[in-house]
């Protein structure tokens, strides 16, 4: 287990280095007139030079890259050109927002799709058909329409939740919940159908296995067979699907954060990208890849934990 773990960490580090290097050279090397764009249309060439000097953009690109790497090793990702906030600090302050939405959404997805999957597998027939229809509709129905409808009903008409913005949990747990529940629900829509179908399929597979018949022959109740044995064995593939969805939730939260003006990781990345805020872009990329690496490790460990064969060896 340990060597395997170390190998995955090593591969993850390689991935991080490769992706950030590609991003670095493609963005810094693209000769985007950053200083000019920051200073605006009427700034003189001299002013642009001053700013370029301040930002260190007049150095050779390799020097800039090693400076960046040096900073990263010391935990410094540079300072945003447009908000003057250290990138590390910005990411740290924005992470709770995104995590609130994504984790809540993941919980909603997991609970509802497990429920739907179990019911679908146990009942079949109509439930199954409803699931299929639900799956197709959510797949094709732009989530944004739903977002608009929900904002209109719950935020503007009923004023139950705010239409924009985020309240930290520490400030007020209730207001925190109100500020993230709507985005989390909308974010869940796409994932529920896919995960439910996956869980249903795995459950049906498990239920047709020999050990289920043997358990039945011993008079074990159907509920126990379904919820204890089959679900446990179906959780492996379900977990893989769920973890991939979890990663993609971070991508999808970009759209949700923009619509709800949530100051999360997505809006930060979005703002950084449209402004060509290079340090912030690099930080977002580094963080994004790091997140994927960590998630993959967690997936590996968790699926190992789920599977006694891996766990025991």
């Amino acid at each position: 287990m340990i060597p395997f773990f170390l190998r995955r960490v090593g591969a993850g580090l390689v991935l991080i280095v490769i992706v950030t290097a590609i991003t670095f050279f493609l963005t810094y090397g693209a000769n985007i007139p950053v200083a000019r764009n920051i200073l605006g249309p009427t700034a003189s060439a001299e002013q642009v030079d001053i700013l370029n000097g301040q930002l260190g953009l007049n150095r050779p690109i390799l020097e800039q890259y090693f400076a960046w790497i040096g900073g990263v090793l010391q935990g410094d990702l540079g300072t945003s050109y447009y908000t003057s906030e250290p990138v590390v600090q910005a990411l740290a302050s924005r992470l709770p927002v995104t995590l609130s939405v994504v984790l809540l959404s993941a919980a909603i997805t997991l609970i509802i799709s497990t429920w739907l999957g179990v019911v679908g597998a146990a009942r079949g027939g109509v439930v199954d058909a409803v699931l299929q229809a639900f799956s197709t509709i959510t797949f094709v129905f732009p989530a944004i329409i739903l977002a608009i409808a929900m904002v209109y009903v719950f935020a503007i008409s009923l004023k139950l939740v705010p239409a924009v913005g985020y309240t930290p949990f520490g400030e007020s747990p209730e207001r925190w919940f109100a500020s993230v529940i709507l985005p989390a629900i909308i974010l869940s829509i796409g994932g529920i159908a896919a995960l439910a179908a996956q869980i249903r399929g795995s459950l049906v597979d498990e239920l047709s296995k020999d050990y289920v018949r043997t358990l039945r022959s011993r008079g074990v109740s159907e509920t126990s067979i379904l919820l204890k044995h089959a679900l446990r064995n179906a959780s492996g593939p379900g977990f893989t699907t769920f973890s991939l969805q979890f990663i993609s939730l971070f991508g999808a939260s970009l759209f949700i954060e923009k619509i709800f003006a949530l100051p999360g990781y997505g809006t930060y990345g979005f703002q950084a990208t449209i402004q060509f805020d290079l340090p912030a872009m690099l930080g977002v990329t580094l963080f994004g890849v790091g997140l994927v690496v960590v998630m993959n490790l967690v997936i590996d460990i968790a699926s190992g934990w789920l599977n006694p064969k891996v766990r025991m060896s």
Partner: protein
Amino acid sequence: MKSILRKLAAVAAVASTALAVASCSPGSQNSAEAAPKDQTLHLAASAPPGNFTIGSWTGGDATLFLSVYDTLIHQTVDGKLEGGVAEKWEYSDDKKTLTLSIRDGMKFTDNAPVDAEAVTASLKAALVGPSTKSNLSSISTVEASDASTVVVSLSRPDASIIPQLTGTPGAIGAPGVLTAESSKLEPVGSGAYILDKTKTTAGSVYTLTKNPDHWNADAYPFQTVETKIIADATAVQNAMLSGQLDATSVSNMEEAKQFPEGQFTTGATPPAAVGGLFLVDRAGTVVPALADVRVRKAINLAIDRESIQKNLIGAERGATNQMVSPNGETFDKDLLNEHPFDVEQAKALMAEAGYADGFAVTMPSTPISLRFESVLSQQLGAIGIRVTWETVPFQDFYAKVLGRSYGMFFMFNGLSGSDALDLNANLTGVFNPFNTTSPELDALRATADSAPDSEQATAFRAVNEYLVKEAFYAPIMAGEGVYVVKKDIQFTPPVARGQNVLPYQPATK
């Protein structure tokens, strides 16, 4: 590059959220006691403020900056100049020495005194600041002659210095932190508000709390001003409708209609930008035809401004052939008859210039020009000018224009509230990438800059007239914007853009 786009769009279409000018007479403001003591003003900005360091402020909307820092001179809602940090100011006869008398008894929020020395230090920082340097390029030295007097020496008379000192270049920061690293996010000034670090998340929410020691504190009724950064226009709209925001702006009355009349007040704001064709290659470097004034005039004659303003912007008023604010002193109504819409005359001028068959020209296509492109192609096509629109990613726009890739382009340029400043801007940077000028123009500008106050307006009208008659540009529109505020807020549309939150007051019941 959305931020630039946004900045330009903001100036283009709308008076931005905080189009305000400090109106300084405390008595003129309606009663502060009408508001509950703890009332909060909720505003939104589309992009986060970049940098609070003196001389480094970037971005169009300076509400936050100018709330934290006080400026040397203030400008009233109707554009008049009044004392700020400098209670009084005085030019020498040759207009090359400006003497500022600093107001007594002011303190920065770190308790340092706002004296001549502090003002000098701050101005010196602005002189080399990356975003203010060129604005103050005519200043040669700044010296404190005594504890409450600062003497500013100019290398040449410059009429735009006073208006500059009402804005971000004239902001005064505490000497202890002027350009220190901490000043980027934790500014120390003597302005009407203090940036509340604990309730501020960079890039997301900026909270200002009232500075009770500000010399004009009574003019600021709101105890707290909260500015949310909301990039998405629909999110702003939702926030307004759900009651989370107090004010916003929209591009036209039609758009304002979605805010129910019972809950919101709407009104027009003065033009915030002039849009049109910048015929920048007046030397004919890349588009030889543009060197001929007759061609530039023909372009002016070929454009049906009224129709564009009416059909594309949806406003009866606002068509213009001048680059200055229609509300300002420099604007010349008589000049409006110059280059009327006249295709025949335009064709004749083209023929006279030797371009009877027209010529081909490439213009950059940006998100801003998009909706105007088909009509411009069509109207210029009528006199034989064949336009090719080349899509330019926004982040490359400035660089490409400055790299002299285009002889002409469509753009908006913001109006500052000072004609001197605006005329200057239109002959600077991106708006004059070929650095065209003429001895005549130089002379006119020098005269205007050094003219005594009483003659200044006339002198600048002459500059304007020259630019119109020489067809440096083909201006099209300077339309009004529309503000929307909640019923419990009263908003006074200021003449010039970007000061602080002074135009917002609690509504009198």
